């Protein structure tokens, strides 16, 4: 993966930049030592590493604004970073860039039960929001598996999902307001505690923009009352396609579980070896479906899904009878990544999204690819909404295996797009899938997206090298060419 070449002009400005940052922040909040910078060299996509030129750790929106003003003036590239758990390399540093670490913006500012909302700084972790309101019976719904560590700022940037997004939506459906700083240092406030804004939906645009449009310093999130009753089901099948069919029939019956997950045989056994959740080892696939609400409704749904599963010949069906049992059902799913990490020296987590009905074709073709590349693949799957997480097993110490795993991964994503899906369901494009963007979008589509970038950051200083396979000058992107009374669409030169 090629990142933009370091610009010597920027590297030359490092002393000036360091001096100004130290004056603005304390010395401790500016990291220049080689060892100190190395701590930031990668995010959750550990195959890519690059030490940043410098790291700044602001503690307030105002400090973020001042830092960006300085960087804007000196033309320094900036990479925002929350907890660094991105799986697409979104927070990968640049050799000539400043990494803006946001972990010190870690305060919850306002909890407002009357308006069912929480105002929080961007560095607060996803789980900390739920913890802060659980006494009063509330929680923040989007629940990425990384929720202990990942920040709400990172969630907004990636539009993160989780197992309960099937019913409660992704990050974007749960954000009411944002405070953010633009690359020129302008501080803007979008939305608030009200539900709808006038003008363009900037909150919707910024959510999922991977730190390319601005630095989010505060978010106002929607909190929900916890359901009275929650029950999970664990259903085993001896054929993975039947498990897929069970999901399809559930949804077709008008039943939307709060979460519906699938694991294949390899993932089941990895989980059993790791933490013994009691999954049927011989099943080709298990489904974990969860329902929440009032008891009569939860019971009705679990009953209906039991019937559907039975009709399809499920080999085992259990409905949780206690919180302990329910958590047990989830334990293996939650530990799926580390569990797979134990059966292979390395694994590469993919994140394609497909129309559910195409699951059988995708699984079959993925099997063929697995043989072609000589690499095993375990599957965990947000089955209810068609979001696949194939985990490709490889050994980075074997020369060429990482490259093979990446090729395999790219083929899986191309396949997802081919069957009507998307390159990424929740992990983002980042650097990882940047060069695959043209499989999903035309040049015109991408130019239009880049023009949006230009409206926020005309010099491409914020997180360059992520999301867009090519960068164009904004002045060129904005031009129209008319010749002989006709509109021409010339090729736009790139940098």
């Amino acid at each position: 993966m090629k990142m933009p070449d370091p610009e010597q002009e920027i590297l030359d400005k490092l002393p000036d930049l360091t001096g100004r940052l130290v004056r603005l922040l304390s010395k401790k909040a500016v990291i220049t030592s080689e060892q100190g910078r190395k701590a930031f060299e990668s995010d959750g996509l550990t195959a890519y590493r690059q030490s940043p030129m410098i790291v700044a750790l602001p503690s307030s929106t105002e400090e973020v604004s001042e830092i960006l003003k300085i960087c804007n003036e000196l033309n320094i590239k900036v990479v925002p970073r929350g907890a660094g758990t991105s799986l697409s390399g979104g927070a990968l540093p640049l050799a000539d860039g400043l990494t803006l670490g946001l972990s010190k913006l870690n305060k919850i500012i306002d909890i407002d039960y009357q308006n069912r909302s929480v105002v929080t700084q961007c560095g607060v972790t996803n789980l900390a929001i739920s913890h802060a309101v659980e006494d009063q019976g509330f929680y923040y719904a989007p629940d990425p598996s990384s929720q202990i560590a990942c920040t709400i700022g990172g969630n907004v940037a990636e539009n993160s999902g989780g197992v309960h997004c099937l019913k409660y939506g992704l990050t974007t459906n749960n954000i009411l307001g944002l405070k953010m700083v633009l690359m020129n240092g302008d501080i803007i406030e979008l939305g608030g505690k009200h539900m709808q804004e006038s003008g363009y939906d900037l909150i919707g645009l910024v959510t999922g923009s991977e730190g390319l449009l601005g630095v989010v310093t505060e978010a106002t999130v929607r909190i929900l009352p916890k359901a009275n009753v929650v029950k999970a089901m664990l259903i085993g099948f001896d054929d993975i396609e039947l498990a897929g069919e069970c999901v399809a029939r559930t949804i077709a019956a008008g039943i939307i579980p709060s979460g519906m997950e699938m694991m294949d045989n390899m993932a089941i056994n990895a989980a059993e070896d790791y933490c013994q959740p009691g999954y049927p080892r011989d099943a080709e696939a298990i489904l974990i479906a969860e329902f929440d609400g009032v008891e009569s409704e939860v019971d009705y749904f679990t009953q209906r899904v039991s019937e559907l599963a039975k009709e399809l010949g499920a080999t085992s069906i259990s409905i949780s009878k206690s919180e302990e049992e329910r958590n047990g059902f989830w334990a293996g799913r939650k530990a799926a990544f580390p569990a797979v990490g134990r059966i292979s020296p390395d694994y590469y987590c993919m994140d394609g999204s497909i129309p559910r009905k195409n699951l059988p074709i995708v699984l079959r073709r993925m099997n063929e690819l697995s043989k072609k590349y000589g690499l095993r693949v375990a599957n965990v799957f947000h089955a209810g909404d068609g979001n696949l997480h194939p985990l490709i097993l490889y050994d980075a110490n074997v020369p060429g295996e990482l490259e093979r795993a990446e090729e395999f991964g790219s083929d899986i994503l191309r396949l997802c797009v081919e069957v009507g899906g998307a390159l990424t369901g929740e992990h983002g494009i980042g650097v990882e899938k940047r060069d695959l963007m043209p499989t999903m979008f035309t040049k015109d589509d991408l130019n239009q997206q880049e023009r949006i970038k230009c409206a926020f950051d005309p010099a491409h200083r914020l997180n360059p090298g992520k999301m867009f396979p090519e960068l164009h000058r904004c002045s060129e992107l904005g031009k129209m060419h008319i010749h002989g009374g006709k509109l021409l669409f010339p090729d736009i030169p790139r940098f």
Partner: protein
Amino acid sequence: MTDLYFPTTEEQVSECICDHIVMEKSLDVRTGGSLISLGSPMNVASTLSLKELNQVKLYEPEELVITLEPGVLLSDLKNLLMEHNQELKFEPPDLGPLLGNDPGIGTIGGIIGTNLSGPKRFLAGGARDYILGVQGISGFGQIFKAGGRVVKNVSGYDVSKLMCGSYGTLGAITEMTLKLAPKAQDEISLKIHDLETETAIFLMTEIAACPYEVSGLAHIPGTGTFIRIEGTTASLDERIAAIRGLVGKRKVSELKREESEDQWRQIRDVAPLNPPKNLPLWKISIAASDVLDVINDHNPEFYFLDWAGGLLWMSSKDIPTFDKGAFWLIRNTETPLDLPFNKSPDPLIRNLNKRIKKAFDPKNILNPGRLGF
């Protein structure tokens, strides 16, 4: 006299826009036209109506998605979805009659263009939460698409959300994909008589904070406070009992399915509640905790609350004033007063909006000025 264009293909839409770019002439981009009075007044050369683009391109009930062209009538769409017991969960309103047009002429293009959402907004989100992908023609004359047809998709910027509620100022949407929901098995509403507005707001907030997934909370002064419950038939009794517990000894009546549906249609479409025609009608999105102040400050002749207190409709000759929140001038008086369509945004945000407009439509051809910038 303005020229009228009714393209029947996407290519024709593109041609029409390209021609206008070359001539530097502006276009009034619309679909059915039932919502055309929303927005700041425009001075345009021609009208580009997308209503002949009216095909359903793909409907996969088991995937809960539909791809359609903007001209599909809401009434037709509703019937189509009903065949599979599905619906658009954001309850698109039919504001046609409120704006002096016939009922039933509203299109999905109009709804997505203006991001209009019904009473479930506080529980289930609005139009913008159900749009998965768009395709359209920008003010560069080029076809662009964004998003896709799957629910989980973070590939590239969420341009679909940007297009939703852009009032045709960023591009002519030629195709969109929406997420669908199964229709609830059953519905029932409670009507509480004679609550003071302040008490009603308090009660609505309290109920919205309970885990009964109440899907409608509205207060119409002089008529009643309405609480809607939807879900499996088996669960309605349990939830009604719980909510009755919160309501206490107040006088309550139950509205069975049909009556309940009719009541919420009235709340959704507003016209049946008869807001006075001699005063401007405002729609205000505001935190429920702030709504009472706005009502007291303006002392409106007519008002009611939806979205669990987060939405205020009011008739008042004055421009609404409050700190945080948004408003829309939905209907002006017959001899229009000089009033703004939206609350004037912070200058930095206004500038950002202008830059985004320019990123899609550098010559300001598409619905120029409709959003006031």
